């Protein structure tokens, strides 16, 4: 809620949150808890302190980030890449194998045997298990790297991976990024919806503009492609096309540049919104306001982002003074 706006005395105060936050709650669907709010604010401001300079707060936050991130990725990959396709899959196939054996023992000509579904193709459970065991062996060979850096064993699984990835990317991308691109380009020079100049609401909707724009597009495309031709000698025509190509390329990069700025700023605004949410009186040390009472400045100043921020600035100032004494003047500021 816009607690910062209270400070600026702008905008109306928003409605109170649905349920007041608990001190500590592990329920992900509940209102974010108060302890969590303080931790979140501390970590966020610790990261931002890097803008002043590299400092212990940032280093702490950075290492926590690497630790937590690595652990999360490990957990997800372990659960979905090892437990699922190995333990659960083989467990399932084994169950079917046992059931089939029982069926066959009762009636050697049984027809209602169970199969394992592999990509939509029915496979006998025994085969399914055997094939998956190959993957286990390959995984173990990969793990040999933990003990011996130059062993031959990890090369086998690596080779399998390289082959699969290369083939998958090669086929799929040739289709979508080469063959179908030709299809995407099949558009008429004059858009069927274009109208004569005097009837158009805007220049863009007129026939003349449509023709011009589509010509720009086609010429631009051909010229950029010709800029990336390397093994034919550049005579006048190719040289001129290539120069036009560079212009188009630069405008393209310019649009990427503009979009990148757009995205980066959106990230910052979102963080500010998060801090703002935790500046709500409910998270403040002053406690939530009584019924009918307007939350005051005091409550906002004692809320996690403001209090943590103030303390951090104070500590950083002290730390910087200590560093200044220790470090030679002119040490690189990065």
């Amino acid at each position, binding site marked *: 809620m816009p607690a910062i706006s209270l400070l600026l005395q702008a905008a109306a105060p928003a409605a109170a949150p649905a349920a007041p936050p608990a001190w500590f709650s592990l329920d992900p669907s509940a209102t974010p808890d108060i302890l969590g709010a303080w931790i979140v604010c501390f970590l966020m401001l610790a990261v931002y302190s890097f803008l002043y300079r590299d400092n212990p707060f940032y280093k702490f936050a950075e290492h926590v980030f690497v630790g937590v991130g690595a652990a999360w990725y490990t957990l997800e990959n372990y659960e979905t890449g090892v437990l699922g396709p190995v333990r659960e899959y083989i467990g*399932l196939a084994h169950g079917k194998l046992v059931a089939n054996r029982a069926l066959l023992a009762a009636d050697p000509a049984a027809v209602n045997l169970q199969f394992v579904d592999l990509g939509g193709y029915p496979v006998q459970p025994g085969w399914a298990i055997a094939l998956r065991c190959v993957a286990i062996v390959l995984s173990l060979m990969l793990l040999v790297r933990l003990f011996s850096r130059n062993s031959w064993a990890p090369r086998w699984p690596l080779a399998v991976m390289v082959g699969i990835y290369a083939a998958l990317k090669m086929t799929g991308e040739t289709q979508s990024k080469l063959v179908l691109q030709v299809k995407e380009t099949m558009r008429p020079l004059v858009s069927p919806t274009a109208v004569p100049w005097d009837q158009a609401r805007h220049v863009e909707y007129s026939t003349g503009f449509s023709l011009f724009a589509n010509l720009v597009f086609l010429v631009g495309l051909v010229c950029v492609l010709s800029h990336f031709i390397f093994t034919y000698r550049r005579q006048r025509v190719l040289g001129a096309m290539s120069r036009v190509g560079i212009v188009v390329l630069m405008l393209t990069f310019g649009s990427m540049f503009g979009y990148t700025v757009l995205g980066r700023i959106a990230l910052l605004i979102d963080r500010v919104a998060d801090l703002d949410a935790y500046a709500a009186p409910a998270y403040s040390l002053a406690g939530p306001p009584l019924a009918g009472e307007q939350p005051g400045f005091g409550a906002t100043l004692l809320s996690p982002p403001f209090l943590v921020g103030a303390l951090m600035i104070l500590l950083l100032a002290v730390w910087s003074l200590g560093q200044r004494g220790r470090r030679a003047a002119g040490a690189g500021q990065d």
Partner: protein
Amino acid sequence: MKNLAAIDRRWIFLAMGTLVVVLYALKIPGTLPVNEYVQSYYDTIEALPEGSIVMLAADFDPASAAEIEPMYVATIHHLLRRNLRVINVSTWPAAPPYTQKYFDEIAPQYGKVYGVDWVELGYTPGDDVAMGLIGQSLKSTFSTDDRNHAPLAQLPLLAEVSDSFRGIALLVSSSAGYPGILEWIAQVGGRYQVPILTGTTAVQTTALYAYYPNQLKGFLGAITGATQYLQLVGRDTPALHALLAENQARMLVQSWSHLLIIGLIVLGNVVYFLGKRGARA
């Protein structure tokens, strides 16, 4: 002039930070005209017959959630409001908690039942390979669902899909980079001929134009695309009004930040060229 050129960049950091904080607090909304690509995204979902099954891929993580979350939430609202059924997957390990959080929040508003109206299958590793597998067969890719760790056979919704993407009418990817929409197009779009929509981060947006209109039926480019889409979906979805207002308010902050950046570029170049002329003189 020389002093200005050698300014400590932390003053620029401070200017940027202050601008965003102050403007955000003001909460003034700004609206955007809806572009063709966003309209087409909206229309494609509107055109699906009720009950169709849509695969919603969450391919993002907290780093880019700021850009993706609004479109992701709005898309969930849109799909559920239209009584479409949703299969959730993810190729990014840090995305499934977002899916669970939003379905917890949104599904009850439309009286949806887990397993019948939507399922959450969670993350599957392998990047391109993961998408290839999902395309080949959803049911042999995942052994259990992500929400309850229950065998897939217990989820009635999945009985209606089979291998080679059969039974799925549309794929929507909320994509923040690699692996993401470009890989979905390459591994699933062309191979199994399924229509695809996407909402992406700003950095990826420029590339999407090359895939429209055949391989991509529509797309939401960056936070501005999300705001335009919210303006469309929000019309008939009261639950989205707060999110729409928030996003429109952010657009104002965004505007002035862009103006600051443009101003900095111009100022930087003026200082640079004046300094160069001074040096020559």
